[in-house]
């Protein structure tokens, strides 16, 4: 099989495909920005990109390094403040939010705080930043992360960002907006949705060349794998060209 695209390009392309035109999306550092910008330059020109530091609706010229850097509000409609964009999210204005994570559990709960015991961790991770706010307040979250047995765990060391917590209705019982929650999860192996009944992650499609065995082997918990599992579409040359325009020095897509 001719695979001339990189895994990161595939992830960004698949993620971009989920973003609908004229919707709003919170984007974070790195791959989510590439996905948002790619969507905006292809099928979703009316996509409203929002950065948690205050940039609303920018025409992002090139990949920003920080969610607060000047590139994030270039030719924006608003360059305000964190509380402004977060309040908009709290009021239900943000459709999608991108998240990454060091650990995920079957309900899409995410850990970006510590590995090990929180009071004496083996590894301190960056912390929530805006991740918890995005996962709590956006309507649909899209999680993009690496998949392996250390990352896909039955129970997190720390829930930084709530997914479906421990099952149906749990988000609502905790006080989070009814109907909000994880929508899709994309890893280097495939794409997952979240089962309507159990709220656990469920495989939707593998990436080209990936087997279901590989998927199962790279999780410490048992994954829901339906009979019919599709295959994701790899990025066409035009999409790859646009991604290289967005990230010309390969800060993210070169990894």
């Amino acid at each position, binding site marked *: 099989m001719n695979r001339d695209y990189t895994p990161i390009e595939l992830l960004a392309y698949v993620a971009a495909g989920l973003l609908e035109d004229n919707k709003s999306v919170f984007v974070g550092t790195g791959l989510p920005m590439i996905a948002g910008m790619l969507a905006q330059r292809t099928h979703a020109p009316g996509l409203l990109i929002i950065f948690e530091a205050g940039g609303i609706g920018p025409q992002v010229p090139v990949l920003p390094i920080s969610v607060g850097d000047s590139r994030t509000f270039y030719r924006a409609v608003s360059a305000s403040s*964190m509380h402004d964009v977060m309040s908009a999210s709290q009021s239900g204005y943000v459709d999608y939010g991108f998240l990454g994570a060091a650990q995920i559990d079957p309900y899409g709960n995410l850990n970006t705080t510590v590995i090990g015991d*929180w009071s004496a961790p083996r590894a301190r991770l960056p912390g929530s930043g*805006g991740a918890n706010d995005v996962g709590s307040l956006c309507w649909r979250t899209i999680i993009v992360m690496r998949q392996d047995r250390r990352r896909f765990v039955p129970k997190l060391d720390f829930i930084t960002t709530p997914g479906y917590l421990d099952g149906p209705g749990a988000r609502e019982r905790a006080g989070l907006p009814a109907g909000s929650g994880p929508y899709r999860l994309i890893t280097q192996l495939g794409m997952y949705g979240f089962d309507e009944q159990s709220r656990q992650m469920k495989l939707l499609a593998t990436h080209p060349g990936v087997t279901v065995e590989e998927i199962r082997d790279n999780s410490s918990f048992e994954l829901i794998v339906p009979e019919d599992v599709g295959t994701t579409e790899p990025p066409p040359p035009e999409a790859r060209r646009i991604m290289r325009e967005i990230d010309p020095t390969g800060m993210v897509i070169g990894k």
Partner: protein
Amino acid sequence: MSKTNKIISLQEAVQEFIHDGIHITFGGFTMQRHPMAFIREMVRQEKCKLIIYGHSPGIDVDMLIGAGAVKRVEVAYIGDELFVSPSPNFRRAVEEGSIQWEDYSNFGATLRLVAGALGLPFIPARTMLGSDMITQSGFEPEDRRADPKAAPQKHVLMECPFTGDKVILLPAVNPDVAVIHAQMVGRDGTVRILGQSYADDFVARAARRVVVTAEEIVSEEFIRQCPEQNCIPFFRVDAIVHVPYGAHPTACHGCYDYDPQHYAVYAEASRAGGDAFREYLGTYVHGASDHWDYLDRIGGTKQLSYLKADPAFGYNPGVRRR
């Protein structure tokens, strides 16, 4: 409501406004518009036992942690995003147990400052619910009780008495001092920020005293010409320091971009820690006779010209970021 001359030197500002054990917050966000020159002066004057509040600091708080100056941080994130995340000194300090810390989300941490600025004891929100940030607390209740300025509890959960909605109550914070770096400040003290404020409007208003370092000090006549562009009125500001390039190596919208070369030097030193980080501080902080000497050490006018913002963009599209 004083308009007496508030312009002082960086050294005086740190001497007069910062004491050991102070509760402090800084303006900016990750790699943008932190009062770095002020922070380097704090390290030079060996201030310590700092209690730092914020949402998403980066090299600013990491440098203070690396210098051994910090007792506790109550923040949502400490990192420089794609450059280095989490910040290495912070990471090491948490893993070694040498600082206290408390995790909030960005919105949660910012709302504490909003509450403080509004003169309220707490503020409700719908964020952080269901997460371990509400089941786990970073520092012990007895530490909270021992410090009258610390919030007695990390948060409280309640049902809204009007609607029954579950909400979190976040305790207000009123730091002893806020330090902000702005592009412009009037001689009277009125602050104008170009580009995003991040949360600096509330950072300034929550604190009991405010120090502003600025790229430019302008006449009161000028600052009164477009008042809607002004962020903080003079009577909220206690001291002003003229510090061109005072945010370096962080970016300052409209003035200069972040300095990827210096970030690489810092990241290497802070990842290594120990002697390597002491050497970094030796070169750029303790060994620099003043801010101007620091600027020479990071590459002088040639490097600063290289970082200069393009007026059409507010940043420099030509800066090599990798």
